[in-house]
Structures are given as structure tokens and as C-alpha cells.
């Protein structure tokens, strides 16, 4: 059954050396709090899985937790390159990094296949490209109805998926709105799931809008209550992306020693997310506060 844990407990319990870990959330809902805790607990030899590795995997790779990256787009979104990842790939620093790459749809398809118990998932991608040449997991199958061969990718089953969302009840039933990315698919595809939320709410809040439930508590091993756990990325309706930090990281991460200094100060140097937020300061959190844009309420109807 689902347990309510602290981030330190959840990572200690479910993330082991050598595992494959997917911290998902497409440009949003990126659980930096979990990534930082994995760094602090000095996990090693992880296979990191994410469509867009983003700053969080740049930081984790700089910290030496990973031996492999499964991904589809390697960038600092809207800013530029991921310099720590580039150092690992181009120079083997701090350690070589194995790459396994797809297109976005290929990654989504791998999650879907994993989540739905399929041996492969077909998609009309990769024809005419060099991607199948460098990734033998991309195969082609014959169309039994007489069409052209179609590309397929195999299922992906992360050992652990970590999904950040707006709110969950203590049983792990999770509401998420805004960009849905492939969080649902990653969660169902994984062997273990940690859900991290801005708010813990009563079961009745979830049950009042069952179409909004992205992940059922049934598949959730741990719920972690970690407000602002996705900073410097954002959570729809709760806070904005801290773009100045994304720009700053572009400078910090160009230099290996500056990167380590940043990790020392902001990750190793704080015991947990609460300390990180205290260090960050209220002015920053206030700056990231969005205005109000209510969805409105609909009637599901009471049927007795």
C-alpha cells in the first residue's frame, strides 16, 4: 500500500545503485527535489531516463550518479546546451556516459508499450534517418495488411518513476493539470512509483473530479509532500519557471569546477528541500507566483 514518506525516506527506500530511474515531466513538473536527494544520497551507476534531461540530469550527471542516459532531446530548453552532459559525452568527464536515444514520439511510444504490456509499439518515425543505425532497439515490422514496413520500439520499464504533480490524497490518487507529457505512461510503465506533490488533499477532493486523476494510488508506492519541489521548473497554477536560473545555469555549467561549487552550495550544502527553499528566499518564490486563471467547476451529478 501507498505510504506518505519524506523525500529522504522515499529515495533511500526505492532508489538503489544501478537502477534505472525516470524523473518525468515535459519541461514542467520536473522534480528537482528528488534529483537533489539522489545526489545527496550518492547513488551511483544509475540509468537516467527522461525525454528532456533538462538541468536536473545535467546536475545529476555532473555529480556522478549516472552511467547511462536514455532520452530524446538534450538541451537547456529555450536557452542552449547541457554542458555537463556534453562534457561527459565528449570528454568522458567526470565519467563516460552511455547514450541511448530516440525521438520524442519514440520515447513516448516506449513508455506506452511498457505501460500497456505490449512487446513493441509501432510508429511512422525513423524512415530515412540515421537513428536506427545507432540504436538497434529501433526495429521495423511487416504490415500484415500489405502496407510498408513500420518502425517499432520496445517497451520501457524504469525501475522507479518519480512524478511531480499538483496534488494527491494520502493514498496516492493524483490530480495533475497543465502539460500531461508522458507522466501517466511513465508511471504505469515503471516497477515502482514515487509521486511528489505540492499539496496533500482529502480523498473527497480527488473523487470530486475523477477525470482529472492521472495516476491512481493503486500503483503508487510513496507519496512525498514537497512544496516547490519542481523549482526551478514550474508547476501549472502554482509557480512559474525560474528562467533567470535556467540562464545562470548556462554559465555555471560551462565550467566543471563552478558546477561542483554550485552542487556543494545548493545540493550537498542543504539537508533537504525546506533548507533549499529557505536559502532561495521568499522574494524568489513571490516573483514566481502566477495570477489566477480558474478552470471553473463542472457538475458530475449526484445519482442516487
Amino acid at each position, binding site marked *: 500500500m501507498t505510504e506518505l514518506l519524506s523525500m529522504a525516506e522515499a529515495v533511500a527506500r526505492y532508489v538503489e545503485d544501478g537502477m534505472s530511474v525516470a524523473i518525468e515531466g515535459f519541461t514542467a513538473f520536473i522534480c528537482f527535489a528528488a534529483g537533489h536527494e539522489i545526489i545527496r544520497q550518492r547513488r551511483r551507476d544509475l540509468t537516467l531516463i527522461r525525454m528532456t534531461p533538462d538541468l536536473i540530469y545535467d546536475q545529476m550527471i555532473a555529480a556522478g550518479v549516472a552511467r547511462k542516459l536514455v532520452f530524446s532531446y538534450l538541451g537547456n530548453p529555450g536557452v542552449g546546451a547541457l554542458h555537463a552532459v556534453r562534457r561527459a559525452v565528449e570528454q568522458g568527464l567526470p565519467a563516460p556516459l552511455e547514450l541511448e536515444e530516440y525521438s520524442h514520439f519514440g520515447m513516448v511510444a516506449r513508455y*506506452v508499450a511498457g505501460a500497456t504490456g505490449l512487446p513493441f509499439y509501432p510508429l511512422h518515425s525513423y524512415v530515412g534517418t540515421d537513428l536506427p543505425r545507432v540504436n538497434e532497439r529501433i526495429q521495423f515490422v511487416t504490415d500484415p495488411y500489405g502496407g510498408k514496413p513500420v518502425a517499432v520500439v520496445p517497451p520501457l520499464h524504469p525501475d522507479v518513476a518519480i512524478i511531480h504533480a499538483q496534488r494527491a490524497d494520502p493514498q496516492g490518487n493524483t490530480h495533475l493539470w497543465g502539460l*500531461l507529457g508522458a507522466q501517466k505512461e511513465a508511471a504505469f510503465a515503471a516497477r515502482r512509483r514515487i509521486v511528489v506533490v505540492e499539496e496533500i488533499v482529502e480523498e473527497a477532493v480527488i473523487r470530486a473530479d475523477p477525470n482529472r486523476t492521472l495516476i491512481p494510488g493503486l500503483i503508487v508506492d510513496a507519496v512525498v509532500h514537497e512544496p516547490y519541489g519542481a523549482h526551478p521548473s514550474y508547476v501549472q497554477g502554482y509557480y512559474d519557471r525560474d528562467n533567470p536560473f535556467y540562464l545562470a545555469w548556462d554559465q555555471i555549467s560551462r565550467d566543471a569546477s563552478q558546477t561542483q561549487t554550485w552542487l556543494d552550495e545548493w545540493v550537498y550544502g542543504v539537508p533537504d528541500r525546506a533548507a533549499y527553499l529557505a536559502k532561495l528566499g521568499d522574494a524568489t518564490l513571490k516573483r514566481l507566483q502566477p495570477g489566477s486563471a480558474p478552470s471553473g467547476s463542472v457538475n458530475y451529478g449526484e445519482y442516487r
Partner: protein
Amino acid sequence: MNYTPSEMMIVAAARALAGVRTVFVGVGLPNIACNLARHTVAPALELIYEAGVYGAQPARLPLSIGDPTLVSGATSVVPMADLFGLYLQGGLVEVALLGGAQVDRFGNLNTTVIGDYAAPKVRLPGSGGACEIAIHARRLFYIMRLSRRAFVEALDFVTSPGHLTGGDSRARLGLPGAGPELLITDKAILNFDNPQREMQLVSLHPDVSLASVQAEVGWPLRLADDLAVTPPPTDDELHLVRDVLDPQAMYR
């Protein structure tokens, strides 16, 4: 000249979207171009973002492909499985805008590596959605700055298919979209409107010489029969770009 080369690119791209209903958008220049088109030549234009957004109406200039301003007030926000499955692979994307680190004469794109894949000189971002966008968009426009490093004789890696080896090679492989049609640069406009589907120069931006364009292209550039001069941005277009769409001059 009272405008920048970037402003000329944005305006030329916006004009190319005249009458278009759906466009698959990236951030930065393409985003400004699409929003400019919506204010001018394509009022019914619906913006589609790979993050899962259909019909975005951004209240500010989006800072990334998944900026929350794209979500609030959009027509529909869906899982990426639906965005790529229903919209893109389903054939609903009329025009997509792409760019890349390298492009060859048939409009194939590389955004993966410079150098050898196993030991790259420069590791680039990879495909993202570009591979399938290039395959499925019914019409494909590129926006790229001209440079000898980018316009190369042979790609180090084919991330996204253009016209492959030219002619009908794309159709023979069964790729659903028509492939690259237009390439808008900071100096000129090029297209692929010939039987070989080879990149050709069709319009020079004002005050740009043919020689300065050829100097940035790594093969002898084909010329269209009628070489035009791109009409410069109008005051109205410049006003929209400068005062409404990119007031902080982030992409100009």
C-alpha cells in the same frame, strides 16, 4: 536599413503562413513568426506545440517549448501520446517550422552530432520531435541563419528527413508529408521547387548580394529562374514584432 536580419526572417516566415490553419511551432524566432502571422496574414492560425498544446494563445513570449503561458487559455492540452499520435501522425499538422545545426542540398537536417556519432566533436540536442515532424507535417518550412558550417555538402548524421537523395525518393519511402518546401534565412529565401527537389535561391533580402549568400553555402547553390528581392518589413509588421510580440528584444 531600419530592421535587423532577424526581424526580416521573422517577417518573411510570417508571410509564408498566409491562410494556414495549423502550424507546429518551436520557441524563439518561429514562435514570434507564428504569432505575427496570427495578427496579420493568418487570423485563423492555430498554434500547436509538441509539449501537448493545441490552439495556444500565449499571453507573453514563451521562454521554452513548455512555458505555462502556452497552457493557460489554450484550446486543448493533451498527453504527448495524443499530440504526436492524433495530431502529427494523424495528419492534422499543415505546416511545421524546423531548423537544424546542419542542412544539406536536399533539405535533410542534422541536430544530433558534429563528427562521429560514437565519439562526437560536438554533441547536439538530438531529435526531440524533429524526426517525426519532418516526416508528417504536410508542409515543412525551415528557419535557419545562413552559414558555411550549417549548409554542408554532406551531413554528419541524418536526424530528420528532407528530400533524402532528391527527386521522388521521399515518396518512394512512403513518408506522408511533402517534405521541405521553403527555407527562410537571414539573407535570403530558398525553396525546393524543382524536379530534383534541390535547394534553390528564390529571393534575396534587400541589400544582400548573391555572392554573400553563396559564400555561406557549402556547394554551388542553384538559382531559381526568377530571382526576386524580398519586400522589406512593413511598419506595421515591425511594430507588432517590437512592441507586442518581443518587447524585450530577446530574439532580435
